[in-house]
């Protein structure tokens, strides 16, 4: 088992006391699987994703539970080891790459940065690797894109570049937080095809955080439905989507139609 989350509870400290954000959430991600974390806004799906990275916003605290990655509990690891995991073995794709890329550096430089910290490649090897990565995400002119600043690229290109950055150090797990929701429909479709191709070609393990059931249907093997911080239903994608047991899942599916 690559990732195993057990009874994870996260609370937010507010003036009125502690408010649960994630409540005893448990699920597992098997290697070479795509697991979708589905739920509406505020259901705690992004928070769960960030907890795996141990990068919760200040004010959010993990009160109980454990997160096992490759058998090691991430929550008890020393900071230095967690840092090696981040970007090296667990990578993340953000919703809006325009904000996730640093606007003052070229895209290629930022992809290279991951390689610099997580691999021992030489400058030339890294350069070749950046080019290779950009080709893998089906960017036709990798050198030109690498030389561009984030704001000079289109949304689709940016998301591809972001994906290339996430894949740079060959991570075992990629967490994708709403990777397509800021793209228009045609571009969405192309990014989805890309995800599927990468899954088949590179056997990616993906934790897909989304509210888009269309995406889930198309990509995922396993679905975890979250609502109000609780897991309401989980199971193989075909089961959950075809024969939803819970009324909440049914409403979500209704909305899709």
């Amino acid at each position, binding site marked *: 088992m690559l990732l195993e989350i057990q009874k994870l509870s996260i609370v937010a400290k507010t003036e009125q006391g502690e408010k649960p954000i994630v409540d005893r959430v448990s699920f597992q991600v098997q290697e070479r699987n795509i697991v979708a974390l589905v739920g509406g806004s505020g259901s705690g799906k992004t928070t769960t994703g960030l907890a795996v990275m141990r990068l919760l916003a200040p004010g959010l605290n993990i009160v109980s539970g454990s997160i096992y990655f490759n058998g090691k509990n991430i929550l008890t690891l020393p900071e230095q080891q967690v840092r090696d995991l981040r970007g090296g073995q667990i990578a993340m794709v953000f919703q809006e790459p325009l904000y996730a890329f640093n606007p003052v550096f070229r895209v290629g430089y930022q992809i290279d940065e991951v390689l610099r*910290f997580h691999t021992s490649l030489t400058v030339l090897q890294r350069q070749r690797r950046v080019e290779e990565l950009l080709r893998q995400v089906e960017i036709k002119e990798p050198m030109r894109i690498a030389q561009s600043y984030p704001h000079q690229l289109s949304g689709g290109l940016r998301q591809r570049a972001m994906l290339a950055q996430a894949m740079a150090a060959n991570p075992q797990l990629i967490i994708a937080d709403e990777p397509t929701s800021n793209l228009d429909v045609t571009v969405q479709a192309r990014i989805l095809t890309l995800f599927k191709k990468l899954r088949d070609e590179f056997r990616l393990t993906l934790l897909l955080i989304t509210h888009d059931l269309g995406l889930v249907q198309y990509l995922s093997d396993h679905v975890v439905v979250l609502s109000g911080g609780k897991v309401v239903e989980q199971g193989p994608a075909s089961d959950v989507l075809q024969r939803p047991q819970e009324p909440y899942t049914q409403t979500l599916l209704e909305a899709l139609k």
Partner: protein
Amino acid sequence: MSKDQYSVQSQNGFQRFRKNGWAVFCLSVLVLLYGAALLADFISPYSYQNEDRNYSYCPPTSIQFHDEQGRLRWPYIYGFKIYFDEYHKRGYEINREEKYPLKLFTRGDPYKFLGFLPGTIRLFGVERPGRLLIWGADSRGRDLFSRIVYGGRISLSIGLFGVFISFSIGLLVGGIAGYYGGRVDDILMRICEMIMMIPGFYLLLALRAMVPASFNSVQVYFSIVIILSFIGWAGLARIIRGMCLSIREREFVLAAKVMGLSDLKIIVRHVLPHTLSYSIIAIMLSIPGYILAESALSLIGLGIQDPYASWGNLLSEAMGIIQIHFAPWILLPGLFIFLTVMCFNVIGDALRDCLDPRFRVEENL
């Protein structure tokens, strides 16, 4: 909107800087001054310690281009005849019997260029016993032009080193305070305020008093740099901290954390570059402060010590009315301080116009 205006707005900052003629002029003046300071050994006819007490407060030598018959000649200078008047005051009279032609690439006082390349060739000079004093001499008969060129080395470089050190500290402290926030921020900012609370000049004097008198000139130079930068970083740190407070909330900082970068690397590589356009302007506008502070210290005799020259300690000779009255040329170093400070300010202002969107001047309104 006219087409012209569109093209102006699409220019980047440095293209817009180039359009500001006044700033470009000042930049070339500075390049000239720094170039002269760097090549001081070659440009100045004498070494900064070459003294001849016979020429105490000797007035500027005028270079002659015509001979007595009014024909154009290779430039030459006349010698001086020294006399004493009825009050035993020294006076100089042009001695038309002695002529010394100006020589280019002549052999002069030996020097070590950049500290290791030995040489004796100087751009211009005259044969001994002639003495070329194009901007006059000081009390010990040293050539003021040479001293000013050499003094530029100290006065001009102290601003750069001082800014480099204090901005390194200021950016780092501001970055750390802004990035971490909370208690770290509180402690660092209180320290900044403590430093800013003490009037700068008195702090300068107090710190200077702590430097042992036995220090040699290089040590004195660096202790002055360090003292100046110790005072300068606090104000910058506060502003950078404010900027970092907002930058750290942006998503690319989270993305950098996800990448596995350490906090320090995130601060230096991802947060601080966003303060760059402000920092460049602030650097330009604070260099004059260091130059002036060094001049002030040297002027009151606490800075660079004789025989080494800095514009401040050259100016300290001009502190008496007698000297200014009889040898007004010893005020020249002040002109250079003024020129440098003004150039840095003009360039800083021009940079602000083209880099800082909040102060952007609409050119084609």
